[in-house]
């Protein structure tokens, strides 16, 4: 029990129970520091830590009776937030915290509000859904619920990578054999050089031995070449195969990812994992296969040979090795920082230039060329300085390392030379030359290790990021007791639906509605009130937090997800077309649709005519690199897609918001064809477009404010009536403005 808890417990009266004791990171003066919130069965209190408010004598700063609290909420300010209690119609601030405490404070507010409403004792569950701290070392994580780079289980990760390597073990074994042979052949050359010097040039081997030795040298080099080519080719296919497997698993996981994960992760970040992280992993295999393993073998081989030939000289050779490792590491870090700055400044300059050139019409129209040039010049100058400095560092540090390496060879020349002069029987001139060759071969791999150590760690982190997605929460397609749904009537029940994309910001707060099969429901309300959210919940892109949504009396969570979505069609606000033909886009939801069916759907969506006018007709490529279709045309293709799928439940999300009046009419006609005999949810900004709706569901503050026919709601003169009046006035102003 902490000092604070002991102290707070000492303040409790007989029978008073401590229900919650938690802290935030902002003190009363708005400085970083601990502040405590204690909720007991009778009171709500806050305390501070710090000078004058020690844990043993601090009196509560705020103290209110729990019975007086009618609710609690979180006030979001800029950079921080406050937990407030509602007491006698007033909101009293209890304490503040930085954004790091947003989720916790929201949970406390929610628990307090629920308890006050039900006149119960509050129950708090502050278990974080996704921790911000590493459970092992306690350090902050780079991403909530993500892995801790410091505690990255390299062994487990390597085991995971090994799992991907398994199917290619035969190739891997052959590659290892190639690497060993290459090393042996590489180590042979200096030894042959020694024989050449001692026995041919300085000895009496003669021309014949010379020819044999040169032939052997050529042979070993040629064999090395062949084996390297073979190893390289094997590695290329080995690498491509593994990366394909990883990429495939990753993409499969991405397609099945829960949408909540998409809310938290930017699509760009996911794509970066698919491209950048797989490239990193691929590069890892390449440098391990091509560089690390052969270099390791080479280093080990050289050490053995050097010690076998002359152990004393071998020790001398190794003298500069630690210095080379330390210096390379240190210099590399320094130089990398300088180059990183170059990269940053270059990126900023490029972004600015890109902005300016892309917006050249605006620049010229506002005659801002001189100011743009001036800004560019200043950024280019910054880059000049950074590049010059980085280049200077590079030019200074790495020759120093070369010099240290050269010192090693000077030592060999001196001590080796002494031995050759004083004791030629124990060390010949050829031995010395072979030593110098081995020395040259020794420091290359050593430097490479020091440089690639950091890279290998980054590549392993990239692998971890990939596996993180592969292991992430997938959409639950089938709950264990999920039912198949062959045919659907289309009755939908919203029963006390509560939902928020983020826990501390509820969007829907108890929505109730009973919708009959085939009814068209207009969803009305200000933006952000939860109209699209309701449709998202019907599609089960998300699950409700409380309450339920039922289709034909069955909770949607108990219906097989594929079956549910098969019966739902969406015409979204932003119609998305894939980079494929118009026909493919229309048939996206029904792959086996005949061309006749595609044409019929397009005709019903009022799209047939404009498609036929295109030079390539239905074979016109749409999407990013396709024909430039107008917003209305894209929207009608999107409607045709929904018509072809023939869903029983239809969602029209602001389907006519981004088009002109004439196009809107055409789309309305298309929609009239589409909504027949389908339960339809229509969201429209222009309320006049909802006249055809059977009933209107008006949302306000996350709840149903009104639900009835257009006529009923107009008669009622409530929220809907006010909204209609407001829009009519706005339209009138627009007409007057022309």
């Amino acid at each position, binding site marked *: 029990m902490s000092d604070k808890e002991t102290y707070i417990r000492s303040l409790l009266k007989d029978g008073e129970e401590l229900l919650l004791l938690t802290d935030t990171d902002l003190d009363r003066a708005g400085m970083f520091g601990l502040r405590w919130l204690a909720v007991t069965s009778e009171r709500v209190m806050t305390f501070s830590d710090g000078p004058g408010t020690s844990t043993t004598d601090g009196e509560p700063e705020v103290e209110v009776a729990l019975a007086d609290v009618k609710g609690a909420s979180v006030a979001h300010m800029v950079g921080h937030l406050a937990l407030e209690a509602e007491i006698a119609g007033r909101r009293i601030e209890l304490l503040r915290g930085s954004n790091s405490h*947003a989720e916790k404070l929201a949970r406390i507010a929610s628990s307090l509000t629920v308890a006050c409403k039900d006149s119960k004792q509050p129950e708090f569950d502050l278990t974080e859904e996704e921790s911000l701290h590493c459970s092992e070392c306690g350090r902050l994580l780079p991403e909530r619920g993500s892995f801790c780079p410091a505690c990255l289980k390299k062994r487990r990760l390597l085991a995971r990578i090994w799992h991907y390597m398994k199917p290619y073990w035969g190739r891997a074994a052959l590659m290892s054999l190639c690497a060993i042979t290459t090393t042996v052949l590489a180590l042979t050359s200096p030894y042959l050089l020694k024989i050449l010097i001692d026995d041919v040039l300085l000895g009496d081997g003669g021309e014949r031995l010379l020819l044999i030795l040169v032939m052997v040298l050529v042979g070993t080099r040629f064999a090395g070449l062949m084996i390297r080519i073979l190893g390289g080719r094997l590695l290329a296919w080995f690498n491509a195969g593994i990366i394909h497997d990883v990429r495939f698993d990753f993409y499969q996981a991405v397609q099945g990812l829960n949408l909540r994960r998409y809310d938290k992760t930017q699509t760009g970040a996911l794509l970066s994992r698919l491209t950048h992280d797989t490239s990193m992993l691929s590069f890892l295999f390449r440098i391990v296969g091509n560089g690390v393993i052969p270099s390791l073998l080479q280093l080990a081989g050289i050490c053995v040979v050097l010690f076998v030939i002359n152990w004393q000289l071998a020790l001398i050779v190794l003298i500069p090795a630690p210095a080379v490792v330390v210096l390379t590491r240190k210099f590399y870090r320094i130089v990398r920082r300088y180059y990183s700055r170059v990269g940053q400044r270059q990126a900023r300059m490029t972004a600015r230039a890109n902005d300016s050139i892309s917006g050249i019409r605006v620049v010229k129209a506002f005659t801002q060329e001189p100011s743009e040039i001036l800004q560019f010049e200043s950024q280019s100058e910054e880059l000049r300085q950074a590049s010059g400095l980085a280049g200077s560092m590079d030019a200074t540090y790495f020759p120093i390392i070369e010099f240290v390496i050269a010192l090693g060879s000077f030592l060999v020349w001196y001590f080796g030379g002494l031995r050759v002069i004083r004791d030629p029987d124990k060390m010949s001139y050829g031995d010395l030359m072979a030593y110098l060759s081995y020395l040259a071969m020794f420091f290359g791999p050593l430097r490479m290790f020091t440089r690639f150590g950091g890279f290998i760690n980054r590549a392993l982190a990239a692998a971890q990021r990939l596996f993180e997605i592969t292991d992430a929460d997938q959409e639950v397609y089938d709950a264990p007791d999920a039912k198949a749904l062959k045919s659907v009537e289309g009755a939908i029940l919203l029963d006390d639906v509560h939902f928020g994309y983020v826990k501390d910001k509820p969007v829907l707060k108890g929505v109730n509605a009973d919708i009959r099969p085939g009814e068209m429901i207009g969803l009305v309300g200000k933006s952000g009130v939860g109209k699209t959210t309701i449709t998202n919940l019907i599609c089960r892109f998300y699950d409700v937090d409380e309450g339920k949504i039922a289709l034909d009396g069955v909770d949607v969570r108990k219906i097989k997800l594929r079956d549910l979505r098969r019966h739902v069609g969406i015409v979204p606000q932003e119609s998305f077309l894939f980079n494929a033909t118009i026909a493919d886009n229309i048939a996206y939801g029904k792959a086996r649709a005949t061309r006749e069916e595609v044409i019929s759907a397009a005709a019903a969506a009022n799209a047939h005519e404009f498609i036929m006018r295109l030079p390539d007709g239905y074979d016109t490529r749409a999407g990013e690199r396709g024909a430039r279709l107008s917003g209305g045309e894209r929207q009608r293709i999107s409607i045709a897609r929904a018509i072809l799928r023939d869903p029983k439940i239809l969602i029209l999300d602001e389907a006519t918001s981004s088009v002109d009046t004439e196009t809107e009419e055409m789309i309305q006609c298309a929609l009239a064809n589409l909504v027949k005999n389908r339960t339809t949810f229509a969201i429209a900004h222009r309320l006049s477009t909802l006249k055809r709706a059977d009933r209107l569901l008006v949302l306000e503050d996350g709840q149903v404010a009104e639900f009835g026919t257009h006529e009923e709601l107009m008669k009622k003169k409530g929220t809907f009536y006010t909204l209609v009046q407001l829009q009519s006035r706005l339209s009138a102003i627009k007409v007057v403005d022309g």
Partner: protein
Amino acid sequence: MDATGPDSEFLAPARVSLSAREPARLRLTLQQDRSYLEVKAVRAFPLSKPDRLIGLLDVRNGDRIIGIIADPRELDASSRKCLMKSVDGHYFLPTITRICSLREEFGAAYFDVETDCGKRHFVAKGLRDGTQHLGDGELLIPDVDGNRYRIPDWRRLDALSRKFLMPVV
């Protein structure tokens, strides 16, 4: 043009009277016009001009803007005190005065800093991509929770702090 006329975005300081029962909720009286019972004060330029151009929002009318006070120094002392207390309480943007350590691991940057609001440890994701350059050496560093930390001019920090920031500036 009268910048503080009846239809202007700007409120004439002489007409403005502010009082507060709690700092976060001001009461505004516009002389010879009307009173607003719950008013929130926000900065129009929170980063570049935090002490000037302060907007008043009508909380009971969906945060509708009432007007802007161009220079709070022109208000009477009591109103100015209420306004500044309220607006200061609405914003929390610690200014980094010293970077004690900055460790980068796998793309995450672990900061240990001193700020005008006390010491703080935080972690920023993607230091190079995340740091915003606001011009004239001013930096804004967001952490993983969406908190932000400001450096008014990195060139004025001590040598060690500058060294830590070198890869991004």
